[in-house]
């Protein structure tokens, strides 16, 4: 058949590439405009960026990097905040500021590792359960999920962390074990809904494989909610990690976990208030930062969907 419309535009490939680049710039510009519309989102982004940078560069930005480990200097112990020690020193003379910055490393590791362990299996199970909505696969996966959700999260993590040897890795395992059901739930709902969307049925009719439908049609449509949830969850995972450290089941001294430091410092309240207060504030700031960032991302994606 002769083409009914022979008019192909005569623009050169280079002109097209230039246009494409311009439109990509515009998309980013628009996204930033929407995100920055809420100043709190920007505050969250800056907080998170600062904490990540501090944690990455901890040995270079802290005044006494050697204080992060088993270090003692009893002559300088129990000093209140001053110019030399902005957050004061603890009972064995270690700089609290240095240890707090190193504490960010453990907190961020906790968040990143737990999410990395939790998201892939959680999402996969959610995809399967949603795709086989109404069949025994759905029932099996979602009832197991319900069982995990029915156990109080902190109690489960405490139980697991106390059975295993208490250290950072085991506390991450414990938190992971209780966290995946949330992703299964989220993706399950989205998939069950998208399963009957015309584009999925359409792909099926074209002879697409199950694999293609799950990972190339449905999953890409779940990406923004998953990312939003991840950034909101970072804060919560860090908080639970700090709680486990606080009760002695997470980061072990002399390593500077934020929760561990609060627990140790709490013994010297209220006289040596700075030992517990600053790590506690650090937890607040990091959790708040991730929550604000997550809210910003949610607004961004929500607006995009309209």
């Amino acid at each position, binding site marked *: *058949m002769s083409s009914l419309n022979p008019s192909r535009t005569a623009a050169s490939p280079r002109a097209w590439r230039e246009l494409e680049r311009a439109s990509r710039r515009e998309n980013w510009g628009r996204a930033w405009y929407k995100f920055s519309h809420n100043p709190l989102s920007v505050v969250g982004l800056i907080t998170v960026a600062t904490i990540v940078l501090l944690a990455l560069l901890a040995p270079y930005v802290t005044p006494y990097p050697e204080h992060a480990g088993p270090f003692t200097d009893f002559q300088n112990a129990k000093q209140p905040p001053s110019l030399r020690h902005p957050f004061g020193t603890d009972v064995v003379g270690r700089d609290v500021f240095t240890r707090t910055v190193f504490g960010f490393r453990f907190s961020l590791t906790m968040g990143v590792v737990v999410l990395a362990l939790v998201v892939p299996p959680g999402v996969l199970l959610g995809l399967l359960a949603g795709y086989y909505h109404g069949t025994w696969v759905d029932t099996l996966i979602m009832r197991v999920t319900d069982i995990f959700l029915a156990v109080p999260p902190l109690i489960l993590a405490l139980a697991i962390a106390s059975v295993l040897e208490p250290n950072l890795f085991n506390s991450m395992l414990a938190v992971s074990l209780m966290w995946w059901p949330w992703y299964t739930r989220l993706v399950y709902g989205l998939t069950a809904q998208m399963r009957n969307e015309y584009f999925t049925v359409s792909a099926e*009719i*074209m002879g697409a494989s199950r694999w293609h439908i799950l990972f190339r049609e449905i999953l890409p449509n779940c990406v923004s909610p998953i990312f939003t949830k991840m950034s909101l969850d970072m804060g919560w995972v860090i908080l639970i990690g700090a709680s486990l450290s606080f009760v002695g089941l997470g980061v072990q001294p002399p390593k500077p976990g934020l929760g561990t430091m609060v627990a140790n410092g709490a013994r010297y309240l209220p006289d040596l208030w700075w030992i517990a207060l600053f790590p506690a504030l650090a937890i607040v700031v990091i959790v708040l930062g991730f929550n604000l960032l997550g809210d910003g991302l949610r607004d961004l994606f929500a607006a995009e969907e309209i």
Partner: protein
Amino acid sequence: MDRPTPLLQIHDLRLQYRVYGGALQVLDGVHLHVHVGEKVGLVGETGCGKTSTMKAVLRVLPMPPAQITGGSIRFKGQEILAMDPRTLQQVRGRGISMIFQDPTAALNPVFTVGQQLEAVLRSHWGRRADRGEIRAAALAALEEVALADPDRLLDAYPVQLSGGMRQRICIAMALATKPELLIADEPGTALDVTIQDQVLRLLHNLVEERNTSVILISHSLGIVRQLTDRVYVMYAGTMVESAPTRKLFTHPGHPYTQQLMEVVPRLSGGGIAPGIPGRIPDYLDPPTGCRFHPRCPHAMEICRREKPPAFSLDQDHQVACFLYDPAQGSPAP
């Protein structure tokens, strides 16, 4: 009839949806066949089971709640209902393809047109094709559906296109696999009449050229009259009449078809047609006997008791109505 085996043959298909309060008897003994190269229309009210029948053919009904309780669907002599997933995957796309009424929902919003079209082509050609070839084929496919500027369209997302463009792209995708049978489910309904006309003409030309068999689902009698060779009329999950298009429009047999013809608005005036009294029955508890009898002006005693079989008016005109039962004696209205 000495014609060869039909490309698609649906025999006595029964389908129900399990819901709260029982089972919806959505299809109650549907018969349909399509020969190679034939263009068949399927008309009926909204909710009469047209789309459910076609989804059953492609086995894309959500099961549960849907449940096929009887009948057979044969494609080139092979039973679709008993096919293993691999064979079924071969039939879908290569054998049978489908276009939906809403082109917006039929395209994945997060991929460009090119990515989607190329994915279809790649799955059809297998691994042997290289990127350049696939790109060229995608461009050709878009040109075939008369879309201007295909280079740019390949990099566009569905939201950036108009309804007419999206429907053309859906047609391009459905035909890219060179199917033997194309099911078009109200392909113009979501578009305005001008664009609808263009799209239907285009579709008609494309299938004529390839000698593709077509099942055109529509509730517009005008469209069916223009584009099909033979028509099936469905009412509440039953096939009430089948006839060559011309014959159906000049001599509609079933009371339902006759009433359907009368309610078509005409420009020549006469006001708005009174319509068909009553409404489509409750599928949970469908009427006994003929499902149309509560709305039928000619309803007889037997219609309440027995389901009418298909009576042949002549060789290619079947009507499921006791008015045509020689045993009843009364001549047709």
